[in-house]
């Protein structure tokens, strides 16, 4: 087991499996709580497998390109490679779209934010070192990018006649 975990691909594969397991669990619980939400079906399981495969392909591309001479490609985030892989595959076959969409979107987000919350546990003490001024600035920085992009998009969509 320890030896196996030294192989990073096996480790990544297991972590993604954990993530998918939690997603499946979330979708199941969500359906218990609200019977109108998406039920777990055979297609959901197929979707989870597809998500695992696409994630692994993305990791593989990202790892292989780490030795690329082009900085931009070398530093392109693995998250981006996974999205691109999935997009290309979904454009090729509609089956992938059907399978993935049988996985409830909101059920994917809850486990991620659970881990995000745990991961910042040791950062809470760092807050002491940040000034209240930056906290106020942060509100305007976050609002700024969101309002800025929304305004540009809104104007663009109007010009495009939508």
């Amino acid at each position, binding site marked *: 087991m320890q030896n196996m975990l030294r192989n990073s691909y096996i480790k990544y594969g297991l972590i*993604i499996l954990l*993530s*998918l397991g*939690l*997603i499946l*669990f*979330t979708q199941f619980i*969500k359906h218990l709580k609200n019977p109108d939400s998406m039920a777990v079906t055979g297609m959901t399981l197929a979707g989870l497998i597809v*998500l*695992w495969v696409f*994630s692994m392909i993305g*990791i593989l591309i990202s790892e292989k390109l780490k030795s690329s001479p082009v900085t931009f490609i070398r530093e392109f985030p*693995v*998250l*981006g490679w996974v*999205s*691109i*892989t999935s*997009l*290309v595959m*979904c*454009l090729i076959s509609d089956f992938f779209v059907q399978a*993935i969409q049988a*996985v409830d979107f909101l059920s*994917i*987000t809850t*486990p*991620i*934010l*659970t*881990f995000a*919350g*745990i991961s910042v*546990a040791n*950062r809470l*003490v760092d807050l002491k070192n*940040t000034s209240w*001024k*930056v906290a106020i*600035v*942060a*509100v*305007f*920085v*976050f*609002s*700024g*990018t*969101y*309002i*800025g*992009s*929304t305004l*540009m*998009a*809104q104007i*663009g*969509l109007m010009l*495009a006649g*939508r």
Partner: protein
Amino acid sequence: MKKNFIYLILFALAVITAAEMIGFQSVMVGSFSIGLLPLVFAIIITMVLGLNLFRKGFWKKVYSKENVDFAGKYLIFIMLPLMARYGADVAPKFGEILQIGWVFIAQEVGNLGTVLLGLPVALLLGLRREAIGATLGIGREGELAYISEKYTLDSDEGRGVLSLYIIGTLFGTIFFSIFAPLLLHFGFSIEALAMASGMGSGSMMSASSASLVAQVPEMESTILAYASASQLLTSFLGTFTMVFLAAPLQQLMYRLFVRGDKHAKHAA
């Protein structure tokens, strides 16, 4: 690994169950109703229980150093299925997105809002070089890398970007879960808000787009498609926008404002 790691998994299952059982809750912000999703409760529960105050006995095992490190180090891999899901959201609308592709590119420029809105406020509050780090962008890994390369992290600029990074990590998702649906009440179109959600942080994008879906469920496919297409574009163009637009604009505005400041003092 082993024992404490099992506790981590069990704890995650318990948090998910609690968050899903609380479910979707509407709260009033001023006179607007905002829907809070289970994901917001999940992050609040895990953050509150992670406070040092609670870390005794059993909780100390759940929030052991290895477990917290695991969550931090592999969060990106836990997020990969979400990124893979976005392909299926974008693909059916790919033609439509290409048709208005220039709108997607134009809204990238909107990310300059961090400088336009944030910098004046930072300077008014009396921040100086820290403001450079704190307003260049939303303070994710890209800005962190750029600032540390240019000024090092142990400079005023570095402290600014680090502070923003910490605040964003802790409160970014909660902020956008409330802010995105709030803007919907101000008459912005759901398509525009969806595009704006792709701002370069995976978790912030999920939070804002999911909150938009909760408000307008019948538009789910469009919202997710636009948000993820824009997110993908930001991962391509984000660095360029930062280096070639945000940074020069910031320097220009900084010089303008800080010089004006000195003049004002002279006049007084």
